[in-house]
């Protein structure tokens, strides 16, 4: 089976993030594999181990993203591809999907896995857009995957409920939490990762003109969520508390 995983290098949102001049500061920030993509990588490895084939991880970004690709190789992926977009000014979900689809169009992928969302941008668009461009089936937020021949039985998370469905390969799925428990890379895995093939491509290599993948969206402002203030505990008679609450919702929170 020919398996591809779309992987994004993101900020570790559990670490401190500093915004200055409308940008997230890269200095001092920690970078990780987008956690939802880790589920995708793990699932890809499990599918390969059960059905044979090869797992290729793909990312777009600068040279630094090699670290995340090597980590995926250490987990057990077979090959990696870095599409270097360092020199491209303005990228969004449209651009990413377009570039990835250009790369994937002649690869005859049986299965493509991606994360449900990236924890930085949080759009959840890239996976489905790639599938649309490739003209293959896709299912988002999956929590279980079973492949039988070219039939695929899937459970997916729908706002806390589970939907079961059946579809066919070739297929793109996006991984939701609960799909699996991503493994830690093994020590031999880490040591072998460097020797596994990692191909680096430029947009030119894919015959993509930068203008054709120019972002369709514009980021107006980036800011941190407001600091959490201490809560207020209302006191006294229940009647009075209700009155006070309604008053506060009107005058202070201005939600009614």
């Amino acid at each position: 089976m020919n398996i591809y995983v779309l992987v994004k290098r993101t900020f570790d949102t559990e670490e401190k993030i500093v915004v200055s001049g409308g940008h997230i500061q890269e200095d001092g920030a920690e970078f990780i594999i987008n956690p939802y993509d880790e589920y995708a990588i793990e699932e890809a490895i499990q599918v390969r181990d059960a059905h044979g084939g090869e797992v290729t991880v793909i990312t777009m970004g600068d040279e630094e993203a090699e670290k995340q690709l090597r980590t995926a190789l250490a987990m057990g992926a077979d090959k990696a591809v870095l599409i270097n977009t360092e020199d491209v000014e303005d990228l969004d979900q449209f651009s990413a999907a377009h570039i990835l689809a250009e790369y994937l169009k002649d690869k005859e992928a049986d299965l493509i896995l991606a994360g449900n969302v990236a924890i930085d941008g949080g759009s959840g668009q890239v996976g489905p857009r790639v599938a649309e461009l490739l003209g293959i089936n896709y299912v988002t937020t999956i929590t279980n995957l079973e492949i039988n021949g070219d039939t695929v039985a899937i459970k997916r998370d729908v706002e806390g409920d589970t939907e079961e469905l059946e579809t066919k390969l070739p297929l793109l799925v996006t991984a939701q939490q609960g799909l699996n428990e991503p493994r830690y890379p093994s020590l031999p895995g880490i040591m072998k990762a460097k020797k596994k093939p990692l191909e680096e491509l430029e947009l030119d290599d894919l015959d993509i003109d930068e203008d054709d993948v120019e972002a369709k969206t514009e980021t107006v402002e980036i800011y941190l969520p407001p600091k959490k203030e201490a809560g207020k505990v209302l006191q006294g008679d229940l009647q009075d508390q209700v009155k006070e609450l309604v008053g506060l919702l009107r005058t202070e929170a201005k939600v009614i």
Partner: protein
Amino acid sequence: MNFDLTQEHQMLKNMMRDFANEKVAPGAIERDKTKQFPTEIFKELSDMGMMGLPFDEDYGGAGADTISFAIVTEELSRACASTGITYSAHISLGGAPLHLFGTEEQKKKYLTPICTGESFGAFGLTEPNAGSDAGGTQTTAKLEGDEWVINGSKVYITNASHAKHLAITAITGTDNGKKEISAIIVPTDAEGFTIIDNYEKMGLNASNTTELVFENVRVPKENLLGVQGNGFKQFLTTLDGGRIGIGAMAVGIAQAAFDKALRYSKERKQFGKSLSEFQITQFKLADMALKIELARTMVYKAAWLKDQGRAFGKEAAMCKLYASEIAMEVADEAIQIHGGYGYMKEYEVERFMRDAKLLEIGEGTSEVQRMVIARHVGC
């Protein structure tokens, strides 16, 4: 000069940090109380290929370097020093002598189960009357026909309850009136061999520390490890490597204490300010960070020298001595910054201090390290 970790080292560090935070740290307070050996953690470490880290792939090892060993030991110890010492002793006291001095056959038979995690590694040197002066060994091994017959006892031996076999030192004869000490591999299920696990320790409570008693224990002649009469030299070499492990453990504990103290100093308010706004607290934290940085650099230097195949005995003693002493100082200051809370188990810093104390004693006391360094600098 290059002070950067390689990409593999960095990946290993990140991975071990995640593993330690997610799997090792959560039960550490509980294990300190119940003295429960971290069996599950070591099952996972076995699956991750960590148990044979520096040993050849031929025996199921991973063939990684000493820097990697230091990284893994530091990260485990940061979360739980009992787990750290278990790992460090497994590799550097249990596996290393077999790796260094074992015959091909011995390595196949005894090093392989250590690499796979089927057996823990252990090393029996210290005796009731032979600690710092390990040459004062009294345990004897007499050759009777094709067998060594062992009598005597060992104290404070790490991991022995979980080992299938371990190397011990014993007197195997006299050479010109001088005691001849050799190392012998003993299966732990041998008849007449008793392992007693009932010490009540100050710290490292979830690690296994045992007393060994040998009463006419018979092992085949070919269980001799290395050269007959070279036991003393061999364990000195073994301990040089082990000291890097102790240094790395100390750095891990100190880092954990610092991290907790820094976080607490930002949260705790007294006199209308957080502690971190007081210059005295800032200076304490600055000194702690400085000492940790120096200790880690020394550990890496000793490890690097070893990996280059260069002499590293002096540096190993230096890193062990310095790191263990600053681990105590940093843990002490971390408790101080926590005030009364620091005295409570829940805040963990008191455990760090109890755990750190062993590092000034095991694998050569601080005094012994100074003796080693003094000899190296020409005293």
